Protein backbone atom coordinates (compact mmCIF):
# COMPACT_ATOMS: atom_id res chain seq x y z
CA UNK A 1 0.00 0.00 0.00
CA UNK A 2 1.18 3.45 -0.82
CA UNK A 3 1.09 6.33 1.48
CA UNK A 4 -1.11 9.25 0.63
CA UNK A 5 0.27 12.42 -0.78
CA UNK A 6 -1.02 15.86 0.03
CA UNK A 7 -1.65 18.50 -2.62
CA UNK A 8 -2.63 22.09 -2.10
CA UNK A 9 -2.54 25.51 -3.71
CA UNK A 10 -1.07 28.41 -1.82
CA UNK A 11 0.54 31.73 -2.74
CA UNK A 12 -0.17 31.05 -6.38
CA UNK A 13 1.73 27.76 -6.39
CA UNK A 14 0.66 24.13 -6.71
CA UNK A 15 2.44 22.15 -4.04
CA UNK A 16 2.63 18.44 -3.43
CA UNK A 17 4.00 16.98 -0.25
CA UNK A 18 5.10 13.43 0.34
CA UNK A 19 4.31 13.01 4.04
CA UNK A 20 6.62 10.10 4.74
CA UNK A 21 9.77 11.23 2.97
CA UNK A 22 9.05 14.86 3.72
CA UNK A 23 9.80 15.84 0.13
CA UNK A 24 8.04 18.95 -1.11
CA UNK A 25 7.57 19.76 -4.79
CA UNK A 26 6.16 22.72 -6.63
CA UNK A 27 4.32 21.46 -9.70
CA UNK A 28 2.55 22.92 -12.72
CA UNK A 29 -1.21 22.70 -13.36
CA UNK A 30 -0.85 19.68 -15.58
CA UNK A 31 1.04 17.68 -12.98
CA UNK A 32 -1.45 18.79 -10.33
CA UNK A 33 -4.30 17.30 -12.34
CA UNK A 34 -2.31 14.29 -13.43
CA UNK A 35 -1.67 13.31 -9.82
CA UNK A 36 -5.41 12.88 -9.28
CA UNK A 37 -5.42 10.21 -11.96
CA UNK A 38 -1.98 8.74 -11.57
CA UNK A 39 -2.53 5.86 -9.19
CA UNK A 40 -5.80 4.57 -10.58
CA UNK A 41 -5.20 4.75 -14.31
CA UNK A 42 -2.70 3.56 -16.86
CA UNK A 43 -0.86 6.05 -19.01
CA UNK A 44 -3.12 5.73 -22.05
CA UNK A 45 -6.25 6.39 -20.03
CA UNK A 46 -4.62 9.42 -18.48
CA UNK A 47 -3.76 10.81 -21.91
CA UNK A 48 -7.32 10.21 -22.99
CA UNK A 49 -8.66 12.10 -19.99
CA UNK A 50 -6.32 15.07 -20.26
CA UNK A 51 -5.70 15.44 -23.95
CA UNK A 52 -8.37 18.07 -24.51
CA UNK A 53 -6.59 20.35 -22.17
CA UNK A 54 -2.92 19.48 -22.58
CA UNK A 55 -0.48 18.41 -25.25
CA UNK A 56 0.21 14.71 -25.36
CA UNK A 57 3.96 15.21 -25.29
CA UNK A 58 3.61 17.41 -22.23
CA UNK A 59 1.49 14.79 -20.50
CA UNK A 60 4.15 12.20 -21.25
CA UNK A 61 6.88 14.46 -19.90
CA UNK A 62 5.00 15.22 -16.67
CA UNK A 63 4.16 11.55 -16.26
CA UNK A 64 7.83 10.60 -16.57
CA UNK A 65 8.83 13.24 -14.09
CA UNK A 66 6.37 11.85 -11.57
CA UNK A 67 7.77 8.36 -12.17
CA UNK A 68 11.26 9.65 -11.69
CA UNK A 69 10.69 11.35 -8.33
CA UNK A 70 8.68 8.38 -7.21
CA UNK A 71 11.60 6.08 -7.93
CA UNK A 72 13.85 8.37 -5.95
CA UNK A 73 11.57 7.88 -2.98
CA UNK A 74 10.22 11.41 -3.04
CA UNK A 75 6.56 10.65 -3.74
CA UNK A 76 4.16 7.96 -2.55
CA UNK A 77 6.75 6.75 -0.09
CA UNK A 78 5.65 3.88 2.03
CA UNK A 79 5.24 4.49 5.71
CA UNK A 80 8.33 2.91 7.21
CA UNK A 81 7.79 4.55 10.56
CA UNK A 82 4.56 3.08 11.73
CA UNK A 83 6.08 -0.08 13.11
CA UNK A 84 9.23 1.25 14.65
CA UNK A 85 9.40 0.76 18.31
CA UNK A 86 10.32 3.88 20.17
CA UNK A 87 10.66 3.73 23.90
CA UNK A 88 10.38 6.85 26.01
CA UNK A 89 11.10 5.06 29.23
CA UNK A 90 14.54 6.63 29.42
CA UNK A 91 13.11 10.15 29.15
CA UNK A 92 14.36 12.78 31.53
CA UNK A 93 12.74 16.01 32.65
CA UNK A 94 14.04 18.77 30.41
CA UNK A 95 11.92 21.66 31.49
CA UNK A 96 9.62 22.73 34.26
CA UNK A 97 6.99 25.37 34.40
CA UNK A 98 6.84 27.16 37.71
CA UNK A 99 3.43 28.61 38.41
CA UNK A 100 4.94 31.18 40.74
CA UNK A 101 1.67 33.06 41.09
CA UNK A 102 -1.78 31.61 41.02
CA UNK A 103 -3.06 35.11 40.87
CA UNK A 104 -3.35 37.73 38.22
CA UNK A 105 -3.77 41.48 37.85
CA UNK A 106 -5.91 41.08 34.75
CA UNK A 107 -9.23 39.33 34.25
CA UNK A 108 -9.05 38.05 30.70
CA UNK A 109 -12.30 36.44 29.65
CA UNK A 110 -10.70 33.46 27.93
CA UNK A 111 -8.14 32.61 30.62
CA UNK A 112 -7.63 28.85 30.91
CA UNK A 113 -6.48 29.36 34.49
CA UNK A 114 -9.83 30.83 35.62
CA UNK A 115 -8.38 34.35 35.72
CA UNK A 116 -5.21 33.20 37.38
CA UNK A 117 -6.14 31.05 40.35
CA UNK A 118 -6.65 27.72 38.56
CA UNK A 119 -9.81 27.36 40.66
CA UNK A 120 -7.65 26.75 43.72
CA UNK A 121 -7.61 30.16 45.36
CA UNK A 122 -5.16 33.01 44.80
CA UNK A 123 -1.68 32.03 45.96
CA UNK A 124 1.96 32.91 45.47
CA UNK A 125 4.66 30.28 45.36
CA UNK A 126 6.94 30.48 48.41
CA UNK A 127 10.68 30.56 47.72
CA UNK A 128 11.13 27.19 49.48
CA UNK A 129 8.72 25.45 47.09
CA UNK A 130 10.47 26.97 44.08
CA UNK A 131 13.83 25.74 45.38
CA UNK A 132 12.52 22.22 45.74
CA UNK A 133 11.10 22.38 42.23
CA UNK A 134 14.51 23.34 40.86
CA UNK A 135 16.08 20.51 42.86
CA UNK A 136 13.48 18.16 41.34
CA UNK A 137 14.41 19.33 37.85
CA UNK A 138 18.14 18.91 38.38
CA UNK A 139 17.69 15.52 39.98
CA UNK A 140 15.42 14.23 37.22
CA UNK A 141 17.26 15.64 34.23
CA UNK A 142 19.75 12.79 33.87
CA UNK A 143 22.82 13.63 31.82
CA UNK A 144 21.19 16.55 30.15
CA UNK A 145 23.33 19.67 30.27
CA UNK A 146 20.78 22.34 29.43
CA UNK A 147 17.47 22.44 31.24
CA UNK A 148 14.74 25.04 31.25
CA UNK A 149 12.75 26.80 33.89
CA UNK A 150 9.74 28.76 32.72
CA UNK A 151 8.16 31.26 35.06
CA UNK A 152 4.46 31.25 34.52
CA UNK A 153 1.27 32.00 36.35
CA UNK A 154 -1.19 33.53 36.68
CA UNK A 155 1.06 36.49 36.40
CA UNK A 156 4.65 35.79 37.50
CA UNK A 157 5.58 39.43 38.04
CA UNK A 158 3.24 39.42 41.06
CA UNK A 159 5.91 37.30 42.73
CA UNK A 160 8.96 38.90 41.20
CA UNK A 161 11.20 38.85 44.28
CA UNK A 162 10.83 35.10 44.46
CA UNK A 163 11.49 34.84 40.72
CA UNK A 164 14.79 36.68 41.13
CA UNK A 165 15.83 34.62 44.12
CA UNK A 166 15.02 31.42 42.25
CA UNK A 167 17.04 32.53 39.25
CA UNK A 168 20.06 32.94 41.56
CA UNK A 169 19.41 29.69 43.37
CA UNK A 170 19.01 27.78 40.10
CA UNK A 171 22.27 29.17 38.75
CA UNK A 172 24.22 28.05 41.77
CA UNK A 173 22.68 24.61 41.89
CA UNK A 174 23.04 24.04 38.16
CA UNK A 175 26.70 24.93 38.38
CA UNK A 176 27.27 22.32 41.09
CA UNK A 177 25.96 19.66 38.75
CA UNK A 178 27.61 20.90 35.57
CA UNK A 179 24.33 22.07 34.07
CA UNK A 180 22.95 25.31 32.72
CA UNK A 181 19.42 26.53 33.29
CA UNK A 182 17.79 28.58 30.59
CA UNK A 183 15.12 30.84 32.04
CA UNK A 184 11.99 31.89 30.25
CA UNK A 185 9.00 33.92 31.37
CA UNK A 186 5.47 34.67 30.21
CA UNK A 187 3.93 37.91 31.39
CA UNK A 188 1.00 40.18 30.67
CA UNK A 189 3.24 43.23 30.95
CA UNK A 190 1.18 45.15 33.52
CA UNK A 191 4.02 45.36 36.05
CA UNK A 192 6.84 45.51 33.54
CA UNK A 193 8.57 48.68 34.71
CA UNK A 194 12.04 49.73 33.61
CA UNK A 195 13.81 47.83 36.35
CA UNK A 196 12.02 44.55 35.72
CA UNK A 197 12.40 44.95 31.97
CA UNK A 198 16.16 45.33 32.34
CA UNK A 199 16.41 42.36 34.67
CA UNK A 200 14.29 40.14 32.43
CA UNK A 201 16.15 41.17 29.32
CA UNK A 202 19.46 40.27 30.91
CA UNK A 203 18.50 37.02 32.59
CA UNK A 204 15.91 35.37 30.42
CA UNK A 205 16.59 33.50 27.21
CA UNK A 206 13.02 33.81 25.97
CA UNK A 207 10.25 36.18 26.96
CA UNK A 208 6.60 35.91 25.99
CA UNK A 209 4.44 39.00 26.35
CA UNK A 210 0.69 38.81 25.95
CA UNK A 211 -1.12 41.32 23.77
CA UNK A 212 -3.94 40.54 21.37
CA UNK A 213 -3.44 43.22 18.72
CA UNK A 214 -5.68 46.20 17.99
CA UNK A 215 -6.75 48.16 21.04
CA UNK A 216 -10.47 47.40 20.85
CA UNK A 217 -9.77 43.71 20.22
CA UNK A 218 -7.31 43.49 23.07
CA UNK A 219 -9.60 45.38 25.41
CA UNK A 220 -12.64 43.26 24.63
CA UNK A 221 -10.93 40.24 26.22
CA UNK A 222 -7.89 41.39 28.21
CA UNK A 223 -9.57 43.36 30.95
CA UNK A 224 -8.33 44.93 34.14
CA UNK A 225 -9.88 44.06 37.49
CA UNK A 226 -12.20 47.08 37.28
CA UNK A 227 -13.43 45.85 33.88
CA UNK A 228 -11.63 48.47 31.81
CA UNK A 229 -9.33 47.50 28.95
CA UNK A 230 -5.64 46.79 29.54
CA UNK A 231 -4.21 48.08 26.27
CA UNK A 232 -3.21 51.55 27.44
CA UNK A 233 -1.40 50.12 30.44
CA UNK A 234 0.45 47.30 28.72
CA UNK A 235 1.18 48.56 25.25
CA UNK A 236 3.81 51.20 26.13
CA UNK A 237 5.54 48.75 28.46
CA UNK A 238 5.58 45.95 25.92
CA UNK A 239 6.81 48.28 23.20
CA UNK A 240 9.56 49.54 25.46
CA UNK A 241 10.62 45.99 26.23
CA UNK A 242 10.67 44.97 22.58
CA UNK A 243 12.95 47.89 21.77
CA UNK A 244 15.29 46.94 24.57
CA UNK A 245 15.21 43.30 23.57
CA UNK A 246 16.40 43.75 19.99
CA UNK A 247 17.14 40.44 18.34
CA UNK A 248 17.13 38.30 21.46
CA UNK A 249 14.40 35.72 21.57
CA UNK A 250 10.93 36.94 22.50
CA UNK A 251 7.33 36.73 21.32
CA UNK A 252 4.37 38.97 21.45
CA UNK A 253 1.62 36.49 21.92
CA UNK A 254 -2.01 37.15 21.19
CA UNK A 255 -5.16 35.08 21.14
CA UNK A 256 -7.87 35.35 18.55
CA UNK A 257 -11.46 34.39 19.18
CA UNK A 258 -14.75 34.34 17.33
CA UNK A 259 -14.86 38.08 17.94
CA UNK A 260 -11.91 38.78 15.67
CA UNK A 261 -11.99 36.25 12.88
CA UNK A 262 -10.17 38.93 10.89
CA UNK A 263 -7.16 38.28 13.12
CA UNK A 264 -4.68 38.88 10.31
CA UNK A 265 -5.46 42.54 10.95
CA UNK A 266 -4.22 42.11 14.49
CA UNK A 267 -1.03 40.44 13.35
CA UNK A 268 -0.42 43.22 10.84
CA UNK A 269 -1.30 45.84 13.40
CA UNK A 270 1.37 44.46 15.72
CA UNK A 271 3.85 44.38 12.84
CA UNK A 272 3.01 48.01 12.04
CA UNK A 273 3.72 48.89 15.63
CA UNK A 274 7.29 47.73 15.17
CA UNK A 275 6.81 44.30 16.72
CA UNK A 276 8.77 41.68 14.80
CA UNK A 277 8.13 38.42 16.65
CA UNK A 278 4.46 37.66 16.61
CA UNK A 279 2.37 34.69 17.61
CA UNK A 280 -1.41 34.94 17.49
CA UNK A 281 -3.23 31.74 18.40
CA UNK A 282 -6.77 30.44 18.35
CA UNK A 283 -8.56 30.44 21.68
CA UNK A 284 -9.44 27.03 23.11
CA UNK A 285 -12.82 27.21 24.79
CA UNK A 286 -15.30 24.43 25.17
CA UNK A 287 -18.16 26.37 26.71
CA UNK A 288 -20.60 27.97 24.34
CA UNK A 289 -19.67 31.65 24.65
CA UNK A 290 -19.79 34.51 22.18
CA UNK A 291 -16.06 34.18 21.62
CA UNK A 292 -15.82 30.36 21.28
CA UNK A 293 -14.38 29.17 17.97
CA UNK A 294 -16.67 26.69 16.27
CA UNK A 295 -16.77 24.56 13.18
CA UNK A 296 -18.92 27.19 11.45
CA UNK A 297 -16.05 29.68 11.71
CA UNK A 298 -13.51 27.38 10.13
CA UNK A 299 -13.87 28.51 6.54
CA UNK A 300 -13.35 32.10 7.46
CA UNK A 301 -10.38 31.29 9.68
CA UNK A 302 -8.64 29.30 6.96
CA UNK A 303 -9.17 32.16 4.52
CA UNK A 304 -7.69 34.52 7.06
CA UNK A 305 -4.53 32.39 7.24
CA UNK A 306 -4.35 32.54 3.42
CA UNK A 307 -4.57 36.28 3.60
CA UNK A 308 -1.95 36.45 6.30
CA UNK A 309 0.45 34.31 4.26
CA UNK A 310 0.03 36.68 1.29
CA UNK A 311 0.67 39.71 3.46
CA UNK A 312 3.60 37.98 5.09
CA UNK A 313 5.29 37.50 1.74
CA UNK A 314 4.33 40.99 0.59
CA UNK A 315 6.00 42.52 3.61
CA UNK A 316 9.05 40.36 3.10
CA UNK A 317 9.29 41.74 -0.45
CA UNK A 318 8.77 45.32 0.75
CA UNK A 319 11.67 45.01 3.14
CA UNK A 320 9.35 45.15 6.17
CA UNK A 321 9.49 41.52 7.24
CA UNK A 322 8.07 40.21 10.49
CA UNK A 323 8.01 36.75 11.86
CA UNK A 324 4.86 34.78 12.62
CA UNK A 325 5.49 31.90 14.96
CA UNK A 326 3.48 29.31 13.08
CA UNK A 327 4.80 30.21 9.66
CA UNK A 328 8.27 29.18 10.66
CA UNK A 329 9.13 25.68 9.64
CA UNK A 330 12.38 23.81 9.39
CA UNK A 331 12.41 21.66 6.28
CA UNK A 332 16.04 20.63 6.42
CA UNK A 333 17.49 20.02 9.82
CA UNK A 334 14.31 18.94 11.58
CA UNK A 335 14.18 16.74 14.65
CA UNK A 336 14.75 12.99 14.86
CA UNK A 337 11.99 10.46 14.40
CA UNK A 338 11.53 9.99 18.11
CA UNK A 339 10.58 13.61 18.49
CA UNK A 340 8.43 13.55 15.38
CA UNK A 341 6.36 10.66 16.66
CA UNK A 342 5.54 12.49 19.87
CA UNK A 343 6.22 16.19 20.10
CA UNK A 344 4.82 17.28 23.40
CA UNK A 345 6.67 15.84 26.37
CA UNK A 346 4.08 16.74 29.01
CA UNK A 347 4.43 14.50 32.03
CA UNK A 348 7.75 12.91 31.14
CA UNK A 349 9.98 15.65 29.70
CA UNK A 350 8.07 18.56 30.99
CA UNK A 351 6.05 19.23 34.13
CA UNK A 352 4.34 22.12 35.86
CA UNK A 353 4.62 22.93 39.55
CA UNK A 354 1.94 24.78 41.53
CA UNK A 355 2.49 27.25 44.39
CA UNK A 356 1.83 24.35 46.80
CA UNK A 357 4.51 22.24 45.16
CA UNK A 358 2.20 19.87 43.35
CA UNK A 359 3.38 18.47 40.04
CA UNK A 360 1.17 18.21 36.92
CA UNK A 361 2.02 17.07 33.37
CA UNK A 362 1.82 20.64 32.15
CA UNK A 363 0.46 24.09 32.95
CA UNK A 364 -2.84 23.31 31.26
CA UNK A 365 -3.61 20.36 33.53
CA UNK A 366 -2.94 22.26 36.73
CA UNK A 367 -5.84 22.09 39.13
CA UNK A 368 -7.33 18.95 37.64
CA UNK A 369 -6.90 16.46 40.49
CA UNK A 370 -7.03 13.39 38.27
CA UNK A 371 -3.91 14.64 36.50
CA UNK A 372 -1.81 15.21 39.61
CA UNK A 373 1.54 13.47 39.06
CA UNK A 374 3.17 14.03 42.42
CA UNK A 375 4.85 16.76 44.42
CA UNK A 376 8.21 18.43 44.86
CA UNK A 377 8.55 16.62 48.18
CA UNK A 378 7.79 13.12 46.94
CA UNK A 379 8.64 13.35 43.24
CA UNK A 380 6.54 11.60 40.61
CA UNK A 381 4.06 9.34 42.42
CA UNK A 382 1.47 8.57 39.80
CA UNK A 383 3.68 6.52 37.47
CA UNK A 384 0.68 5.06 35.73
CA UNK A 385 -0.42 8.49 34.59
CA UNK A 386 3.09 9.33 33.50
CA UNK A 387 3.19 6.18 31.41
CA UNK A 388 -0.02 7.10 29.73
CA UNK A 389 1.62 10.24 28.42
CA UNK A 390 4.85 8.44 27.61
CA UNK A 391 3.24 5.69 25.61
CA UNK A 392 1.22 7.94 23.42
CA UNK A 393 2.38 8.88 19.95
CA UNK A 394 0.95 9.61 16.52
CA UNK A 395 0.53 5.93 15.69
CA UNK A 396 -1.49 5.34 18.85
CA UNK A 397 -4.13 7.75 17.63
CA UNK A 398 -6.28 6.79 14.72
CA UNK A 399 -6.71 10.31 13.37
CA UNK A 400 -3.02 11.15 13.58
CA UNK A 401 -1.75 7.95 11.99
CA UNK A 402 -3.57 8.83 8.79
CA UNK A 403 -2.95 12.55 8.85
CA UNK A 404 -0.64 14.06 6.23
CA UNK A 405 0.67 16.57 8.74
CA UNK A 406 1.65 14.02 11.36
CA UNK A 407 5.42 14.49 11.13
CA UNK A 408 5.16 18.26 11.40
CA UNK A 409 2.52 18.34 14.06
CA UNK A 410 3.74 15.35 16.02
CA UNK A 411 0.40 14.81 17.59
CA UNK A 412 -0.80 18.15 18.83
CA UNK A 413 -1.67 19.10 22.38
CA UNK A 414 -2.79 16.60 25.02
CA UNK A 415 -4.48 19.35 26.97
CA UNK A 416 -6.52 20.63 24.04
CA UNK A 417 -7.58 17.10 23.30
CA UNK A 418 -8.57 16.51 26.88
CA UNK A 419 -10.34 19.83 27.32
CA UNK A 420 -12.42 19.43 24.22
CA UNK A 421 -12.82 15.67 23.81
CA UNK A 422 -12.20 14.38 27.32
CA UNK A 423 -9.33 12.17 26.13
CA UNK A 424 -5.68 13.15 25.76
CA UNK A 425 -5.48 10.92 22.70
CA UNK A 426 -8.48 12.22 20.82
CA UNK A 427 -7.39 15.10 18.56
CA UNK A 428 -9.41 18.27 18.62
CA UNK A 429 -10.56 18.47 15.04
CA UNK A 430 -11.00 22.19 14.72
CA UNK A 431 -7.52 22.78 16.00
CA UNK A 432 -6.16 20.13 13.59
CA UNK A 433 -7.77 21.91 10.64
CA UNK A 434 -6.17 25.18 11.62
CA UNK A 435 -2.85 23.53 12.32
CA UNK A 436 -2.81 21.91 8.89
CA UNK A 437 -3.57 25.20 7.23
CA UNK A 438 -0.70 26.85 9.08
CA UNK A 439 1.64 24.12 7.86
CA UNK A 440 0.46 24.67 4.29
CA UNK A 441 1.17 28.37 4.62
CA UNK A 442 4.55 27.76 6.22
CA UNK A 443 5.56 25.26 3.54
CA UNK A 444 4.38 27.58 0.78
CA UNK A 445 6.35 30.49 2.22
CA UNK A 446 9.49 28.32 2.24
CA UNK A 447 8.82 27.20 -1.31
CA UNK A 448 8.23 30.77 -2.39
CA UNK A 449 11.53 31.90 -0.88
CA UNK A 450 13.36 29.08 -2.54
CA UNK A 451 11.85 29.70 -5.97
CA UNK A 452 12.56 33.42 -5.67
CA UNK A 453 16.15 32.76 -4.75
CA UNK A 454 16.54 30.67 -7.86
CA UNK A 455 14.59 33.11 -9.95
CA UNK A 456 11.91 30.62 -10.97
CA UNK A 457 8.83 31.90 -9.19
CA UNK A 458 5.87 32.39 -11.53
CA UNK A 459 2.50 33.31 -10.19
Amino acid at each position, binding site marked *: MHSIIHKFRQLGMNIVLDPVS*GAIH*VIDDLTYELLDLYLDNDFDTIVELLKDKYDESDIKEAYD*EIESIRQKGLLYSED*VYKDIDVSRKDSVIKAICLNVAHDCNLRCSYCFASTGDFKGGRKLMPYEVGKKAIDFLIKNSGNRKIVEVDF*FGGEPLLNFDVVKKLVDYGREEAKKYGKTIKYTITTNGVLLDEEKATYINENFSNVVLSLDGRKDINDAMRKRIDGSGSYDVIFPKIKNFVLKRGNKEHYIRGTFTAKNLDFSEDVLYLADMGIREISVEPVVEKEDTDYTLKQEHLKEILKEYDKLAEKYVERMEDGRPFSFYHFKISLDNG*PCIKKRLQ*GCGAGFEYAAVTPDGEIYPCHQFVGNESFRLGSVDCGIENKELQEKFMESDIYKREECSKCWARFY*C*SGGCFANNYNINGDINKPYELSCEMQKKRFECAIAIKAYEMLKENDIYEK
Partner: protein
Amino acid sequence: MRHIVTINRTSLKDSLKKPGCGECQASCQSACKTSCTVANQECQN
Protein backbone atom coordinates in the same frame (compact mmCIF):
# COMPACT_ATOMS: atom_id res chain seq x y z
CA MET B 1 12.64 18.89 -14.98
CA ARG B 2 10.03 21.13 -16.51
CA HIS B 3 6.97 20.23 -14.52
CA ILE B 4 8.26 19.57 -11.04
CA VAL B 5 10.63 21.55 -8.82
CA THR B 6 11.70 19.78 -5.66
CA ILE B 7 12.36 22.30 -2.96
CA ASN B 8 14.08 20.43 -0.14
CA ARG B 9 16.61 17.83 0.73
CA THR B 10 14.29 15.43 2.49
CA SER B 11 14.89 15.60 6.16
CA LEU B 12 12.36 13.04 7.27
CA LYS B 13 14.29 10.09 5.94
CA ASP B 14 17.43 11.48 7.50
CA SER B 15 15.59 11.80 10.75
CA LEU B 16 15.44 8.02 11.01
CA LYS B 17 19.20 7.91 11.19
CA LYS B 18 19.36 10.42 13.96
CA PRO B 19 20.06 9.03 17.37
CA GLY B 20 17.08 10.33 19.32
CA CYS B 21 19.52 11.74 21.83
CA GLY B 22 16.94 13.89 23.55
CA GLU B 23 19.15 16.97 23.63
CA CYS B 24 16.51 19.05 21.88
CA GLN B 25 14.26 21.47 23.72
CA ALA B 26 11.04 20.33 25.28
CA SER B 27 8.20 21.43 23.04
CA CYS B 28 4.77 22.72 23.69
CA GLN B 29 2.55 22.32 20.66
CA SER B 30 -0.08 24.67 21.95
CA ALA B 31 2.13 27.75 21.67
CA CYS B 32 0.79 29.24 24.82
CA LYS B 33 4.29 28.52 25.95
CA THR B 34 7.73 29.71 25.17
CA SER B 35 9.11 26.54 23.64
CA CYS B 36 9.06 25.53 20.00
CA THR B 37 6.58 23.42 18.15
CA VAL B 38 8.20 20.45 16.47
CA ALA B 39 7.91 21.73 12.92
CA ASN B 40 10.16 24.68 13.54
CA GLN B 41 12.53 22.90 15.83
CA GLU B 42 16.06 22.21 14.77
CA CYS B 43 17.94 19.08 15.74
CA GLN B 44 20.81 19.70 18.16
CA ASN B 45 22.99 17.17 16.35
